[in-house]
């Protein structure tokens, strides 16, 4: 059962009268509760794919469907986590997380309960009434993830969510996301340019070609992860040491390097 479905998606941007073909025939489907990561060279249009699933942009050709319906506008069934967090600076942590629930008309008592749970889930206790600018980057992104999770969306769209974080924070967020995916699995489309991150987090990794972007290859991670029992390792560095992990990572690296190589004029 496909939760997100890209069929023959093409996207042309017009900049100053010149057409740029960003995507050229993208086919990809993400099953329910599946975690798919898209990796690709910069400028290949991977973020555009996510933005079309979110309803911020629309395909020039082909269709983008979420739960068998064409995407026509942004909505809370498809929560987005942005690279730049995009929190509301004038709202407290709790108010940021609460807004989506207020929009849905969730009664106040239930709202408070769900905000409390989301805050506990992302270990944000004690920061309820802090403003975003008082928090570190990692904490801000936790708030953004809590803001998305609290809606219990059918689909989570994450656009390089850890790209703006320092290396150590990044690792702890990756571990956290894996834990979260076990406790509360969701359909996730995850954009990144970090290959290790993709292999560590995703069930499948889709590799894109350079612009105009297409899906070049899809790597099944989940079967390897289950067969090699990655989940028995608590820490990311232990998983990254496993031969099966290294093998997959190197394969994806080579595939991406071919794209970069063919980019040279």
């Amino acid at each position, binding site marked *: 059962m496909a939760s997100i479905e890209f069929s023959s998606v093409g996207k042309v941007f017009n900049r100053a009268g010149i057409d740029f073909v960003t995507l050229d025939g993208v086919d990809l489907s993400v099953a329910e509760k599946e975690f798919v990561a898209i990796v690709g060279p910069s400028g290949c249009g991977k973020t555009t794919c996510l933005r079309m699933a*979110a*309803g*911020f942009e629309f395909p020039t050709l082909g269709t983008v469907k979420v739960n068998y319906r064409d995407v026509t*506008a*942004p*909505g*809370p069934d*498809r*929560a*987005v986590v*942005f690279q*730049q967090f*995009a*929190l*509301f*600076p*004038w709202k407290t942590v709790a108010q940021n997380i609460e*807004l*989506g629930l207020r*929009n*849905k008309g969730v009664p106040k008592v239930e709202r408070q309960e769900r905000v409390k749970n989301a805050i506990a889930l992302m270990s944000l206790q004690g920061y309820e009434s802090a*403003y975003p*600018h008082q928090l570190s980057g990692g904490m801000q992104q936790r708030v953004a993830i809590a*803001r998305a999770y609290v*809606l219990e969306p059918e689909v989570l769209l994450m656009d390089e969510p850890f790209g703006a974080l320092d290396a150590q924070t990044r690792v702890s967020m990756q571990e956290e996301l894996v834990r979260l995916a076990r406790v509360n699995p969701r359909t996730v489309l995850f954009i990144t340019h970090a290959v290790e991150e993709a292999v560590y987090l995703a069930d499948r990794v889709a590799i894109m070609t350079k612009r105009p972007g297409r899906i070049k290859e899809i790597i099944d991670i989940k079967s390897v992860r289950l067969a090699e029992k990655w989940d028995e390792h608590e820490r990311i560095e232990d998983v990254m040491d496993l031969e099966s992990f290294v093998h997959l990572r190197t394969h994806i690296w080579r595939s991406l390097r071919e794209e970069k190589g063919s980019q040279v004029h």
Partner: protein
Amino acid sequence: MSLAMQTKINLSEMSADRAQPQRSAVTPPIRLTRSERMRLGTIGLIGFIGIWSLLSLTGLVPRQFLPAPHEVLIRFIELLGTPFAGATLVEHLASSFMRFAYGFLLAAMIGIPLGLLMGWYRWLDDVITPIFDMLRFIAPIAWVPFAALWFGTGIGGPIMIIFAGAFPPCLINAYRGARFVNRNVIEAAQMLGTSNLRIVTEVLLPASIPSIVAGLRVSAGLAWQSLIGAELIVASAGVGFMMVQAQAGVATATVMTCMLAIGLVGLLIDVALRQIETAIRRRHGQS
């Protein structure tokens, strides 16, 4: 490293760091300390009053047209308690200030919401902008005859003239604030299912507060200026009215007292709004 090379490096760093005094043909003027600037300001003020006293006391300009500074000051203190043209200076000021407050608040109450809505709804922008662009080039003082005909010379007419002066900056700054809100934040609100009206009130409005408050400062200044202009022609009380009466009796010291009072109150309004602006910017963590 040679001296020449050092100089070169200093030059390239200069634009980034002007606090460091540099010696070179293209060096910007040396930054002064706060006390040095205060001293210069005081020298300017003393010079101004000195020249004024000289012209007046030596009789170079007839005293009747240019009273000496101390005479204006004495008249100022006198008028605080003594009625002129039916009321004391304080009463005239209060009457002017009330008109100012009504016109200014009315402009803010209409201009800010309208500007925000125009920043979100493109069609509203397209409908309003041509009318607005035409009307805003009519100076507030040019509204006087029309305002007097429609709303009379009591309270309505002056308020309309103040409104004409105060309205454009309120609208323009709210509009610009709303248009330049970070797209990321708007998209975040949209994906959370936020309705259009709620985006205006909970995203565009708070994000535009610094711009709106800056607009209010400009607006208050223009409102106060237009008010005095309006009162010179319409109204039967107020500082402007008082000035016209004084002019008719060639009471130059009274005219100048009024000017002094106008300047002081205008300055106070600006200082008050600047305080609010700073406080808001600090709360936003943006300064």
